[in-house]
């Protein structure tokens, strides 16, 4: 009987050649949940914590709605306990030799390999994402991350001499992609000797499982602690004593709010925000391959967000036809099915996509969807939105998953303008078969990652991050390591919060002239590093010629003759040193699975505003100016308020040597200038060396355009010491990394 039924079925399939279901059993995931009695707590210091009297949230299968487990929600004291555990284990972990930490990470990689099936079925089950993507990309990438960072730990004493681990790191994760986002950040943090407390959103069991696997290694149970709780616990986690850095991944608005909340709290804040990506399709591209790039970017459960698609007008019709034909072949369904391209992402993601589509339609956009879904279905079809001009309100918002918003452009120049006409700067791909054009666009895009003729490639050795409102924190590559390091000897960061600082009135009291909008020194950016070095050396020579004037100016300010001479001499040396360092910029990275190079570019930030300290009126001014110029930035400087004259003397030389508009020195009330600069939306970064209150204000105000800021929290800095006055830290802060992927082959 059964045989004939199977036979009849085979007959039918023989005619239709349909795809069948390829279900992946999730029994092991359920069995693991059973070991916790379907009741998940927090994993702290190598054990499960399930405190009494806490509310809990159900963890549901996003497709069937079935209740899989209940997850406890942390409260303040649970967070404090987790941070305490991380702090206790920090002493032991950070003092181990790097080679020892490397072994521990390798053992964790093996542990993950041993339980990989459990990991990928659990992740796919609870997130609804296609299992193929979790199994074939996320879990192998997690192992590669551990192995890569184990190697980094092994060579840490040599390669990262002069740097020390920050301490306890607080990591705040978004609901989607929390497994991978977590691995990308805990690996470098643990490798360099930090310990981590991870706050995962309610009902995200995979990070808890990873923590359990790490705990089962026995040694160092407290280095990775995972607590589950609402996002409102973020500031609580940040304000725990000992937390030195908070890494946040999530939406831009949440990041902004956290930036404001953490002003003056002490820990550094690394933001990785937004999820939208961009694809530039030129008429010289292999259009069919570019269409596959769109699928990779938006419709294959590979990335969390949607896609802005810019298509050259001459290939618009052809591309749209191919896209629509391709969309017809996408398969949606339960993530645990091995032959599915797109799973579901839960009701919130679906509703967000639905709202965007409705709004776009009401603004006159065309929406093409492959297949229709009943309104109560957990799935959302792949959608292609077009005819939505930049001025329509809808285009201001991020494109949500699984949407692609296509717009035409006419020329490469216009493509670049449209691509950069957004407050966000995450990742982008350029599709063109003309090498010169592709490189021109790739260098011109204000993005953290650019792929040429590919989309969504990843590797632990390549820094991944963003700029502008996408946040300026990094994972992977050398940049990922520096996120969790500080120059040796930097004091621990303590809260310097001033409760009575009024953000609305800070710097408003004294009216003075507004600094004019700086002209961007485009000619400077285009200069070769050699030319920049030559100019810095010329400036050094000019300074030397002016030595006697400068010394007498400093003396008049009350500096001893000997000290004044030394200050001028050291200033000259600093200019020369940065001139020499400017030569070594950018490098090629080795990537295991890519044929072709990945370039790690060090690009200028744009307009960098610097509020110089009151002390060392000449030396601090030059020490800050030199790295900023060496990396190609346009600079706005506020010199020492007590003694601005030496700086203004230098200005005279700069006026004759440097292109106009490149360096702008403004004097006046420092608080007022700080306020203007910190709130300025078109200044890309700000360094502040002044009062604690000023630092706090700068941190708070930077939430506007999420510019990276560097503040001294009111602490003086030893500008005459090379470590603090000319250390590599300044160079890292004066430039922005871009990873440029160049796959090759013919």
């Amino acid at each position: 009987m059964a045989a004939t039924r199977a036979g009849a079925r085979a007959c039918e399939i023989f005619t239709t050649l349909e795809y069948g279901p390829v279900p992946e059993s999730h029994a092991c995931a359920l069995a693991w949940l059973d070991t916790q009695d379907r009741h998940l707590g927090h994993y702290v210091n190598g054990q499960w914590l399930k405190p009494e009297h806490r509310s809990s949230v159900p963890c549901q299968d996003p497709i069937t709605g079935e209740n899989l487990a209940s997850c406890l929600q942390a409260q303040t004291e649970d967070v404090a306990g987790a941070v305490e555990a991380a702090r206790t284990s920090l002493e032991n972990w950070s003092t181990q030799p790097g080679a020892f930490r490397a072994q521990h990470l390798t053992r964790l990689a093996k542990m993950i390999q041993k339980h990989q099936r459990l990991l990928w079925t659990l992740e796919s089950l609870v997130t609804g994402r296609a299992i193929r993507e979790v199994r074939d990309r996320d879990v192998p990438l997690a192992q590669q991350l551990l192995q890569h960072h184990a190697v980094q730990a092994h060579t840490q004493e040599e390669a990262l001499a002069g740097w020390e681990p920050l301490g306890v790191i607080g990591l705040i994760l978004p609901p989607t992609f929390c497994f991978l986002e977590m691995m990308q950040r805990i690996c470098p943090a643990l490798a360099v000797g930090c310990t981590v407390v991870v706050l995962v959103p309610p009902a995200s069991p995979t990070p808890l499982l990873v923590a359990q696997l790490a705990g089962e290694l026995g040694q160092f149970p407290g280095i990775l602690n995972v607590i589950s709780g609402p996002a409102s616990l973020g500031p609580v986690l940040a304000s725990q004593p000992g937390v030195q850095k908070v890494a946040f991944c999530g939406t831009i608005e949440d990041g902004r709010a956290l930036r404001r909340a953490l002003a003056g709290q002490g820990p550094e804040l690394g933001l990785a925000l937004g999820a939208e990506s961009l694809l530039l399709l030129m008429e010289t591209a292999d259009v069919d391959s570019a269409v596959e790039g769109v699928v990779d970017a938006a419709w294959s459960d590979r990335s969390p967000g949607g896609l802005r698609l810019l298509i050259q007008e001459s290939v618009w019709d052809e591309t749209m036809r191919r896209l629509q034909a391709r969309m017809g072949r996408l398969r949606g369904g339960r993530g645990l099915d091995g032959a599915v391209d797109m799973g579901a992402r839960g009701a919130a993601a679906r509703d967000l996509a639905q709202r965007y589509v409705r709004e776009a339609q009401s603004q006159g956009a065309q929406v093409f969807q492959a297949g229709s879904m009943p309104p109560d279905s957990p799935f959302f079809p792949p959608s292609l939105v077009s005819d939505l001009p930049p001025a329509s309100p809808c285009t201001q918002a991020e494109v949500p998953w699984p949407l692609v918003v296509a717009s035409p452009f006419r020329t490469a120049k216009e493509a670049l303008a449209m691509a950069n006409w957004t407050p966000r700067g995450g990742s982008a791909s350029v599709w063109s078969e003309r090498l010169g054009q592709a490189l021109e666009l790739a260098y011109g895009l204000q993005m953290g990652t650019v792929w040429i003729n590919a989309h969504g490639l990843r590797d632990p050795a390549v820094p991944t991050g963003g700029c502008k409102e996408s946040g300026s924190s990094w994972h992977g590559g050398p940049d990922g390591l520096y996120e969790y390091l500080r120059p040796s000897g930097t004091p621990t960061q303590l809260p310097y919060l001033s409760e009575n600082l009024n953000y609305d009135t800070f710097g408003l009291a004294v009216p003075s002239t507004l600094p004019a909008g700086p002209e961007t020194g485009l000619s400077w950016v285009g200069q070769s590093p050699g030319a920049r070095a030559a100019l810095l050396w010329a400036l050094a020579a000019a300074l030397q010629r002016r030595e006697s004037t400068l010394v007498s100016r400093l003396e008049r300010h009350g500096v001893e003759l000997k000290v004044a001479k030394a200050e001028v001499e050291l200033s000259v040396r600093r200019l020369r040193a940065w001139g020499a360092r400017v030569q070594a910029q950018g490098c090629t990275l080795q990537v295991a699975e890519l044929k072709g190079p990945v370039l790690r570019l060090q690009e200028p930030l744009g307009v960098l505003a610097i509020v110089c300290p009151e002390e060392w009126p000449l030396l601090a001014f030059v020490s800050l100016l030199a790295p900023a110029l060496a990396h190609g930035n346009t600079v706005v400087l506020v010199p020492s308020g007590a003694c601005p004259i030496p700086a203004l003397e230098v200005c005279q030389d700069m006026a004759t040597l440097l292109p106009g508009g490149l360096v702008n020195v403004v004097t006046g009330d420092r608080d007022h200038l700080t306020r203007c600069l910190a709130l300025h939306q078109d200044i890309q970064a700000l360094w502040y060396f002044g009062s604690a209150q000023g630092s706090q204000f700068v941190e708070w105000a930077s939430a506007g355009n999420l510019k990276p800021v560097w503040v001294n929290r009111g602490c003086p800095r030893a500008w005459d010491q090379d470590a603090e006055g000319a250390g590599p830290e300044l160079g890292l802060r004066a430039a922005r990394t871009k990873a440029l992927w160049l796959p090759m082959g013919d």
Partner: protein
Amino acid sequence: MSAHQRGMELDLSWISKIQVNQPAVLRRAEQIQARRPVKKEWQAAWLLKAVTFIDLTTLSGDDTSSNIQRLCYKAKYPIREDLLKALNMHDKGITTAAICVYPARVCDAVKALKAAGCDIPVASVATGFPAGQTHLKTRLEEIRLAVEDGASEIDVVINRTLVLTGQWEALYDEIRQFRKACGEAHLKTILATGELGSLTNVYKASMIAMMAGSDFIKTSTGKETVNATFPVAIVMLRAIRDFFWKTGNKIGFKPAGGIRSAKDSLAWLSLIKEELGDEWLKPELFRIGASTLLADIERQIYHHVTGRYAAYHDLPMS
């Protein structure tokens, strides 16, 4: 089979702007193999379908009438009768799509098939197979003789020299003459993609072959060092789709060489399904050139039906 396509005037603008990005095509090829697994009954049904696409091939120097005869009977009875019965597929007339032999063996094949009471077509390779390095006159004569002997499909090889030196008009003219020499027989054009140098050339040669009137474009002779690969197939399938979008004519596709396992054949079917769609999944538009593939498919079917793996002697020899 239906009437073959007549081709069209040469239009070089169809190939002048084409760009193929090799690394991107390679990535797509990797993805396609991992994204559409086919299991259980679906696998069995798909494998049986794959049998109906096979051009069962022998192209060896030591072919004689006896092994040609064995091959023809295997083409008629590709899967053991009791296995088909177990799947309720015994009355579906499952045979391979064709027999493919050298021109000198066409007579043997036609005779053997007639004796077996089987009307599947005989395909003959021609035009100086596999290198194509003979005079045009003899190449054309070879086609005519094979057709006279009863071959109803001709697998011609193109002149790689013309592709590598960019003589697209000359290539078009040659294939045009092959087309004419074939008469009513179907023309399958072998591009020998392993020797064309780049994927862009593969696309251009595909387009020229279709414009010149080929009914099928075929990847390789099986005698080059690089055989039918997924990246090459993706480029050829995209060319077929472009040609269909431009002219409304559906051209067939035949990968050949190196396809040995049942698992491979499933991947090929899903590749066609993904890139061109279900309408291409019929013997008129899709063939697989293979000699040992059939044995592995039969073994897999045996396993599906019985739950055991077959010894080679459990299944009839070809």
